[in-house]
């Protein structure tokens, strides 16, 4: 019996598969921190966690893993959100592979390329669009979560959000109508003037849990799930329902991210070969790491060593 015994229905190899997987988590606030915690419990082994911020007083209503002791004091700086995520994972995993990047995800692209899945819990539509485009270029499934609180008048509010699985080749955030030019323009006009968005822990939890379910579906499916998903969250009714576009877009190929856009348009294998040559040069120049001994030389050394030990 292992500690993952209660999730063995995910498959005989699920423990190995989950441990071998690497998850990119961009945005470690209210939504992303839930994903960190749950994937840690689930047994995902590899993480690239990216967020430029540190914990603040107003995060503590929802930042999973964050403690009051992590806040800035007169003598200590506030703890980075990536460090909080790292601590959370290390408390749940024996040998996790964690890369923390306290920076914009735009400066973490090399690490994110190595991820099997990217989960984005970012604040803006432009960040969503750019992150999805990056994921599509590298054929990485992208899961987007987001929520907002809308004022209805008379001191009434609506909590709403979405969870979207954007699988390469399948409908994207634009196909679904989440990203529109109008929204991007409005956001750009508000840039710098936006106040803090209302956020609450339970709604983030619902969306993040659903995202973790999708991560699990992609890695170790337990039923034949659809390859593209758009779920609408209504926090007032407590519902999470398939958006109608899921039905209408079935069988369509995404026109916004054509296959011709995959890869880096500036890639040049001659530059790559130069880099490899330089690395090889460094390796061969290092006196303590003889990596390319001939097989008979290695065998001879092993025999001599064994004889010497005996």
């Amino acid at each position, binding site marked *: 019996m292992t500690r993952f015994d209660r999730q063995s229905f995910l498959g005989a190899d699920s423990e190995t598969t989950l441990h071998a997987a690497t998850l990119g988590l961009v945005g470690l606030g209210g939504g992303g921190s839930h994903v960190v915690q749950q994937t840690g419990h689930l047994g995902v082994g590899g993480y690239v966690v990216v967020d430029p911020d540190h914990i603040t007083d107003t995060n503590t209503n929802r930042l999973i893993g964050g403690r009051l002791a992590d806040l800035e004091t007169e003598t200590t700086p506030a703890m980075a959100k990536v460090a909080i995520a790292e601590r959370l994972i290390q408390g749940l995993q024996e040998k996790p592979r964690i890369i923390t990047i306290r920076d914009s995800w735009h400066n973490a*692209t*090399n*690490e994110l*390329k*190595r991820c*099997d*899945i990217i989960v984005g819990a970012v604040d803006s539509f432009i960040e969503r669009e750019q992150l999805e485009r990056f994921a599509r*270029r*590298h*054929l*990485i*499934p992208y899961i987007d979560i987001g929520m907002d609180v809308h004022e209805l008048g008379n001191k009434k509010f609506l909590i709403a959000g979405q969870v979207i699985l954007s*699988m*390469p*080749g399948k409908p994207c955030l634009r196909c679904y109508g989440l990203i529109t030019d109008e929204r991007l323009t409005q956001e750009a006009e508000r840039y710098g003037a936006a106040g803090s968005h209302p956020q609450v822990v339970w709604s983030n939890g619902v969306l993040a849990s659903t995202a973790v379910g999708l991560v699990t*579906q*992609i*890695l*170790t*499916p337990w039923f034949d*799930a*659809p*390859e593209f998903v758009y779920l609408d969250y209504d926090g007032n009714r407590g519902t999470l329902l398939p958006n109608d576009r899921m039905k209408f877009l079935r069988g369509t190929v995404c026109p916004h991210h054509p*296959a*011709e*856009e*995959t*890869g*880096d*348009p500036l*890639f*040049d*294998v*001659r530059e*790559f*070969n130069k*880099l*490899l040559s330089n*690395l090889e040069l460094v390796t061969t120049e290092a006196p303590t790491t003889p990596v390319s001994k001939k097989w008979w030389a290695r065998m001879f050394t092993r025999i001599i060593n064994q004889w010497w030990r005996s």
Partner: protein
Amino acid sequence: MTVRFKITRHLLEAIRHDLVRPHAFAHERVGFISAGLSSADDDLWILARAYRPVADDDYLRDPSVGAMMGPDAIRKALQWALSDGVAIFHVHTHGGRGRPGFSGIDVREQSKFVPSFFQITRKCPHGALVLSNNSAYGNIWLDGRKPGEPIGCFIEVGMPLHAWSGV
């Protein structure tokens, strides 16, 4: 260095489906996959974009091999590499299950035609793949003058994500 070949499940299924179509005289079918590229440090990603089968008329009669491409087949693939500036991978299937391997004839023929792609697009690597019904194996040429080397990892992107070692 690790070379990873990524392809969507949808595209891979379409390729497998196409390669088992019967031909008038060839025993097997062949085609080409175009790919974009990306790197991080000394790791390389081959990102499959599209597939084009070799046209029925572009096979040569050669009973000593499963399929022999004529000069037009190669010319069209070279044209694709030139016009789109993409990496090109020759592909065929051996069917069955488990990791397939190249035959001696495959290796001999690849060493003839793959380096010719570097005359057309020097900025892209090129190569060859062989499929089974649930796996794949392949070689990549990073330079037209050096022999090809095995692709380290294959990733089929879909639900579920399926990855396997190529070496």
